[in-house]
């Protein structure tokens, strides 16, 4: 039914050539993610969002009706413009996700540095503070 709606409207459809290309890109993308995990360059916990993005790309490429339906729903007459908009939103969400990860790591680094400073101070009460700042004699 969604396909019917898309066809009945003056929607600029994505050409079959583009669709084939998109399917290939999506499959290569998913393969790349799997390969990165295999080579331990990417931790499993961070692959979920990327997998979802890759699968979404694949679905949009294989079933053009979905993209037409989304474009229709968003009131965008040009399917290509809809594609770009969706891509932009997804990219933004992925970036936000990255910032969340970075924030968490920053917190962990802070705590590690504090623990290190405390541990180091304990062994040094009788020695010189082994700081990065070794002063040259004035």
């Amino acid at each position: 039914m969604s396909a019917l709606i898309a066809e009945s409207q003056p929607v600029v459809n994505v050409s079959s050539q583009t669709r084939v290309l998109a399917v290939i890109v999506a499959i290569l993308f998913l393969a790349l993610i799997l390969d990165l995990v295999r080579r331990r360059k990417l931790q499993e916990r961070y692959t979920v969002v990327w997998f979802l993005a890759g699968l979404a790309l694949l679905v949009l490429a294989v079933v053009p009706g979905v993209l037409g339906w989304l474009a229709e729903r968003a009131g965008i007459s040009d399917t290509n413009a809809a594609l770009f908009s969706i891509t932009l939103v997804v990219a933004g969400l992925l970036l936000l996700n990255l910032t969340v990860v970075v924030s968490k790591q920053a917190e962990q680094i802070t705590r590690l540095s504090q623990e290190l400073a405390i541990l180091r101070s304990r062994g040094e009460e009788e020695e010189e503070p082994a700081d990065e700042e070794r002063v040259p004699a004035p």
Partner: protein
Amino acid sequence: MGDRGHAEVLLFIPAFNEAETVADVVRAVRAELPEANVLVVSDGSTDGTAHRAHQAGASVASLPFNLGIGAAIQTGYLYALRHGYRFCAHLDADGQHRPEDVRRLLDAVREGRCDLAIGSRYKTPSTDELVAGEGSSHYVPTFLRRMGTALFRQMLSFVTRHRFTDTTSGLRAANRQAIELFASEYAGDYPELESLHSLVRNGLTFEEIPVVMLPRAGGRSKFNPINSAFFIFKGLLVLFVGVLRRREASGPGSGSGP
């Protein structure tokens, strides 16, 4: 601790490139409070701050890189927690706080009057607290700073429903309960404000004690208009998020309570 005895009070001084003044501050507080151990938290200093502090007789905890004042202060609280101190106090490394004020703040927590004592530059001393010939009038903040602190004072007082006169004070004394709280949460982007908010949220008590601010003994203030604006933005965000957190916390709790 070992040969340093079992002191129950830790005084710590967060310092970022304060080599000019830190040794004098360490000597001054050691003279005023000989019963306490003194720790300088060097926040990634590169000018010999740790060295000078050590020579002046303080223990030194050096952070491997600059983490900001909140994380530096939290390091002090964490140190106090790990080494089993019952009380701690911290003051700035630039010599703006008087050692005798540190003692008065510590007395407030040692006598059990509050969990956290805050040195306030703006609270007017009552007559018995007023030292002859001295008042809080030594410290004259810049216009921008006065505006900022006034704004935060109002907002924090509104959010917590407690009256604060000085929300950005770097002179505080804490008992064990406050040490435990601040060791676990202090390193936010606006630590002074956030910590007061979480203190009230966790049901701890505080008391503001009027103190005298001296002019800086050396070094430079790390404030300029741009980071002040950023500071104000962060402050507003912290308070706003703090209000949301409180609602979130009290919502399910009030419903499922026995």
